[in-house]
């Protein structure tokens, strides 16, 4: 019963939507019926257009995430561990963090045109900050008692990092990861909608020109599904690596 109940409202909404379209209460050029959206999706999938665009968008997302997340992770670790590096770079990074990265779009278009680099740059920039901030916070909040224990028990600096610092910081790093994944899709949607010649966002904008509202709605749903997929993968990773923590063990 508890497994079915959460699906009740979405199913009812879907039925009401379908019925509304069927009886002409919702006009097709405002919001096409769910069946029409599904048909559009089926059509795109069969022509292969959908898969090419998903591939292009996913590649941009992942490359941008790897670059921005990687730099954020390394800098977060370094600044969490070394106070010299932290004093040197943290306040600068915090200042940059206050610039909404999407505000840079005009500048980025001037720099990179509308090529791949532009999208990847924006995604990397957007993903960088949540990963950086949370990694740094995670490292700093590692229990100093455990560090003292590790030293008293003769752990080398490398062992101390691998057995105490990294696992201690992991819960916070996962918070950054999931937040970063959200920003990743958001940035990509905006970037692809404004300037692109391929990808899901382009597919939606192109459909708009031809008044294919069903394709537009379908593209939005694809974005939602991709975002949900990324979040599920992150949660799965979180559950497997944080099994020791009773909070995650039950979930």
């Amino acid at each position, binding site marked *: 019963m508890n497994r079915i109940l959460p699906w009740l409202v979405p199913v009812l909404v879907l039925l009401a939507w379908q019925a509304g379209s069927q009886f002409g209460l919702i006009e097709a050029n405002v919001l096409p019926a769910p069946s029409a959206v599904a048909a559009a999706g089926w059509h795109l999938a069969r022509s292969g257009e959908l898969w090419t665009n998903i591939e292009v968008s996913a590649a941009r997302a992942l490359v941008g995430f790897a670059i921005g997340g990687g730099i954020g992770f390394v800098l977060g670790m370094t600044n969490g561990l070394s106070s010299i590096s932290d004093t040197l770079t943290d306040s600068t990074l915090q200042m940059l963090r206050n610039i909404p990265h999407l505000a840079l779009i005009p500048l980025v278009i001037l720099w990179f045109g509308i090529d791949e680099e532009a999208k990847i740059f924006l995604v990397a920039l957007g993903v960088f900050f949540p990963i950086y901030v949370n990694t740094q916070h995670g490292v700093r909040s590692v229990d100093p008692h455990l560090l003292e224990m590790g030293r*008293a028990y003769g752990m080398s600096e490398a062992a101390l990092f691998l057995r105490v610092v990294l696992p201690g910081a992991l819960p916070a790093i996962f918070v950054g990861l999931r937040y970063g994944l959200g920003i990743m899709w958001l940035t990509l949607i905006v970037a692809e909608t404004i300037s692109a010649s391929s990808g899901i966002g382009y597919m939606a904008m192109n459909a708009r020109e031809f008044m294919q509202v069903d394709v537009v709605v379908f593209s939005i749903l694809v974005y939602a599904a991709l975002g949900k997929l990324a979040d599920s993968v992150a949660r799965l990773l979180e559950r497997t690596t944080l099994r*020791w*923590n009773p909070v995650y063990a039950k979930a």
Partner: protein
Amino acid sequence: MTVNVLERAADAVTHASSPGAAITLRGVTKTFGTHRVLQGIDLTVEAGAFVAIVGRSGCGKSTLLRLLSDLDQPSTGNVVVDQRTKGWRDIVRLMFQEPRLLPWQRVAHNVEVGLSRAHTMRDRRRQAEDALAQVGLDGRGHHWPAVLSGGQKQRVALARALVSHPKLLLLDEPLGALDALTRIEMQDLVTNVWQDKGFTAIMVTHDVSEAVALADRILLLEDGKVALDIDVDLPRPRRHGDPSAARIEGRILDQLLRR
């Protein structure tokens, strides 16, 4: 079979010398900024003794323990542990007030933290299991620390301290956070292990009755000096509420409270 014999032979070689470390402190002081925490301590502890150090908060007992654990150096004077003036960290183990287990490692892995990387993995696992059996937690190696009770966690911490066969065990109020009954059980466990292994034990506590229950000798630290040095000549096993123990306890408390 052959392996076991070899291992035992290796064990015998390591423990051929006395299982406990003798300690000598000469004119030891420790200053933090302008505050002199230890004001010239001279002390000799024979190998295999159980010494309790009692005193009020801030009397310097934790500082003394840090010097003995080789985590810190004295400002003046010298500390000799097991005939070494430095670098004895590998023969000392420290037990803290909190268990300080790594929550992300299973119990057996936590115990293995006490072993050097030099052992093979199988060897480490075997020694960890042995140490766990010693503290009455056989077969719990695969559990996460989070599922253990406070007393069990402190037992794991004891196993971690014992697994490397230290010659000197330092205990920093290790039973302070436990409930009364668990505490008595742990006191018995510590006494048994100490009698069995023969290491030197130094325990810091502000519970005088605990000091009397466990130690051969009690040092009272006041303002960074040894104010009282009493031998506890009571037969073991000691029972709680023994009248002669109460007399010693009374004497120490009188000094502590300046009555």
